[in-house]
C-alpha cells in the first residue's frame, strides 16, 4: 500500500496532461480513503480504551467473592485503606484485573506478530506449541526450584525459545512451509502438555489450583510482582515490535522486494519469531496458557480496522478479550468461578473451526 502511494506520488513520473490529472485524482482518493481509515482506527482505539476502562472498573468493583463497601473501593485501589478493603481491592482485585489486561495485550501482540510474519491466521504461538513450551518451562521451575528469583518468567521464556527453535528447525525443509510448521507445533505441544501433566500429577492434591493455572490458564492468585513483570515485558515488547514494524511491512510485499528495499529478511524473521515467543512466554509465565487469545485477536482487529492496521490494534483486542473473559469467569451466573482460560477456549475454539472452514475462492495458502 505505501509502496503504491509512493510510486504514484506527483512529480515522480510526469505524463500527459489527462493521465496526470487522472493520477492526481486517484491519489486524492487514496489519501482521502487513508484519512477516513485513520479516523476509523482512532475511533476504534478510543472505543476499545473506554471498553477496557469499563471492564477494569467492573473487575475491581464486582470482583467475584467478597463484599467491599463501594465508598472504600477508590481509596483502597490507591492503597489508602487498611484491613479487609485494602486486602480485597489492592491485594487481590487490582493485580488480577491488571494481570488480565496486560497478559491479554501480550498474547494479542504475539499472535499478531506471527500472523503478520507467516501470513496465516492459524500460525499463532499457542497453535505452534510455544505457549505449551513456556508452560512446561515454567512448571519445571515452579515444582523443582520454586525459590529462584524471577525463575518462572525466565524459565518460561527459555522454554518457549527452545521450543521455537525446535519447531522452526524441524519444519524447515527447502523453505518454511506454514502447514508443516503448524503440524510440527501440534506434535511438539503434545509432548510438552504430557510433561506438564506428569509434573502436576506428581505434585498431588494440594497444588490443584496451581496445576489448573499451568494447564488451562487462570489469573486467579495474581500479585503485584506478576503485574510488574507483565508491564515491563509489555513495554519492552511494544518498543521492539515498533522497531520491527518497518521490516515487517516490507516483508509483507514478498521476500525479494523486501530484500530490495534494504531489509535483512532472515534476521528480521528470526527477530519477529523470537519476540512473539518471548511475549507469549512472559504472559504464560504469569497467567498460564490462556487459550486462543493470540489466535483470535488479530482477525478481530482486522475486521475492525482492516488487515494492514490490525497489527497495532491486536494488543487492545487481546486485553479486552482476557479482561472480559475474566469478569465473566468471576461473575457469570451458573458457571463462575472458573479458570479464565476455559472461557477463552470456549469462545476461541469455535472461531478456530470457523477459520478453517471458511472458504475463500482461489485462496491457496
Amino acid at each position, binding site marked *: 500500500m505505501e509502496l503504491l502511494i509512493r510510486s504514484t506520488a506527483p512529480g515522480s513520473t510526469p505524463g500527459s496532461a489527462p493521465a496526470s490529472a487522472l493520477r492526481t485524482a486517484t491519489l486524492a482518493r487514496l489519501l482521502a480513503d487513508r484519512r477516513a481509515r485513520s479516523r476509523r482506527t482512532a475511533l476504534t482505539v478510543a472505543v476499545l480504551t473506554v471498553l477496557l476502562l469499563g471492564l477494569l472498573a467492573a473487575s475491581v468493583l464486582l470482583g467475584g467473592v467478597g463484599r467491599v463497601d463501594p465508598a472504600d473501593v477508590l481509596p483502597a485501589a490507591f492503597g489508602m485503606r487498611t484491613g479487609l478493603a485494602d486486602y480485597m481491592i489492592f491485594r487481590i482485585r487490582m493485580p488480577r484485573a491488571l494481570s488480565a489486561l496486560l497478559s491479554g495485550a501480550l498474547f494479542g501482540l504475539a499472535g499478531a506478530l506471527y500472523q503478520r510474519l507467516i501470513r496465516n491466521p492459524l500460525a499463532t504461538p499457542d497453535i505452534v506449541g510455544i505457549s505449551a513450551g513456556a508452560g512446561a518451562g515454567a512448571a519445571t521451575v515452579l515444582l523443582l526450584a520454586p525459590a529462584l528469583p524471577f525463575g518462572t518468567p525466565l524459565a518460561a521464556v527459555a522454554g518457549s525459545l527452545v521450543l521455537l527453535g525446535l519447531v522452526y528447525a524441524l519444519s524447515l525443509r527447502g523453505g518454511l512451509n506454514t502447514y508443516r510448521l503448524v*503440524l510440527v507445533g501440534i506434535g511438539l505441544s503434545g509432548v510438552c502438555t504430557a510433561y506438564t501433566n*506428569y509434573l502436576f*500429577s506428581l505434585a498431588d492434591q494440594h497444588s490443584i489450583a496451581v496445576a489448573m493455572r499451568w494447564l488451562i490458564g487462570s489469573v486467579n492468585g495474581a500479585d503485584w510482582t506478576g503485574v510488574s513483570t507483565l508491564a515491563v515485558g509489555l513495554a519492552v515488547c511494544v518498543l521492539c515490535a515498533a522497531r520491527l514494524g518497518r521490516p515487517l511491512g516490507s516483508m509483507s510485499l514478498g521476500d525479494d522486494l523486501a530484500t530490495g528495499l534494504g531489509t535483512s529478511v532472515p534476521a528480521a524473521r528470526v527477530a519477529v519469531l523470537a519476540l512473539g515467543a518471548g511475549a507469549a512466554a512472559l504472559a504464560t509465565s504469569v497467567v498460564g496458557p490462556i487459550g486462543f487469545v493470540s489466535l483470535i485477536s488479530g482477525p478481530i482487529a482486522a475486521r475492525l480496522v482492516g488487515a494492514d492496521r490490525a497489527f497495532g490494534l491486536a494488543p487492545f483486542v487481546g486485553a479486552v478479550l482476557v479482561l472480559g473473559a475474566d469478569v465473566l469467569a468471576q461473575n457469570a451466573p451458573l458457571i463462575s468461578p*472458573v479458570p479464565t482460560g476455559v472461557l477463552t477456549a470456549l469462545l476461541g475454539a469455535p472461531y478456530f473451526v470457523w477459520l*478453517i472452514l471458511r472458504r475463500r475462492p482461489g485462496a491457496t495458502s
Partner: protein
Amino acid sequence: MYATSPPATSPPPPPLARTSSSRGTALVVTACAVLFLAVVASIALGSRDISPPEVVRILLHPDGTGYNSHVLWTERIPRTLLGLTVGAALGASGLMMQALTMNPLADPGILGVEQGAAMFVVLGILFLDITGVTGYFWLALAGAGITSALVYLIGTRTNAGSSTLGLVLAGVALAAVMSSLITLLVVRDEAVYAHLRFWSVGQLTGRAKVLDEILPFAVAGLLLALPFGRTLNVLSMGEDAARGLGVRVERAQLLGAAVAVLLCAAATAAVGPVAFVGLVAAHCARMLAGADHRWSLPLSMACGAILLIGADIAGRLVLGHGEIQVGVMTAVVGTPFFVWLARRRNLVRV
C-alpha cells in the same frame, strides 16, 4: 492411507501389491514372539525386585500366599493383560482410521476422539451418577462416536490446504472445546477434578478390576476388525474402483468407522486418553507388511500391544521409585514419530 497413497487413476493390480501369505505368516509369528517377550518382561520387571525363579514358582502355584504372589497376581498380571488389550485395540483403531480417512496422521488421540469420550464419561459421572467401567464404556462409546462424526464433518470441509491437515486441525479444535467443557463441569468439585486429572494422563496402574468389564467389548471389537482387511484393501483403490468391484462403499465405510470407534471407546474407558499408540502402531505395521491390510491389521494390533506394554515397562523402570504414566511415555515416543511423518515431503502440500 499412506503418504504415498496409490493414485485412483491407475489402481495397481491387486495380487502384486499384496503380501505373500508365507511372508505375512512369518511376520505375524515374529510379532507374536516379540509380544510374548514383552508380556514376560512386563510380568517379571517392576519397581519391586522379584527374582525370575520366584516369578516362575508363583506362576506355577497360583494359590500361593506372600507379598510377591500378591503383587504378581493382583497387580502385574492384570496390568499386563490390560496393556495387551488396550494396545491392540488402539493399534487396530489407528490403522482403520488411517485407512478410512486416507490420512497418515489419523490417531484416536490426535483427532480428539478420546477427549470426546472423556467428556461424555465426565457428564455421566456428574449428572447420571454412573460409576463402574461398564457405564463408562457406553458413555465413552457415545462420546467417541459423536466426536468422530463431528471431526470428520469439519475436517473434510476445511479450507486448510489439505484434508490431512484439516482433520488434524478439526481434532485439535474439538479437543480444546471438549477439555474446556470438562474443566467447566468439574472445576468446583475438587474430588472429581483430582480423579479426572489422574485419569486424563492415561495409565495402567491400579486398574485390575477394569479388565473384566472392558474385555468383552475390546475382544468383540478386535474380532470384528480382523476380517475387515479385505474390505480396506478394496476401499484403498478408490471409491469408484471399489464400487466397480461390487462393494457397497458407504456401508463399508460406516461399518469400519463403527468398529474403529468401538475399539477406541473401549480403550479410553479402560485407561483414559493415550495418544500416539494408534498412529505409531499403524505405521510400524504398514512398514512391515506393506499395503495389504489383511496382514497389516493384525500386525498393527500386535505392534500397539508391544508399544503400550513396552512404554509401561519403561515408565515403571525409568525412575527409581514412583513411575511415569504410560500416556506420558507414549507421548515421548510418539511425538518424534509424528514430527517425522509431518516432515515427509508428500504429506503436506508444499
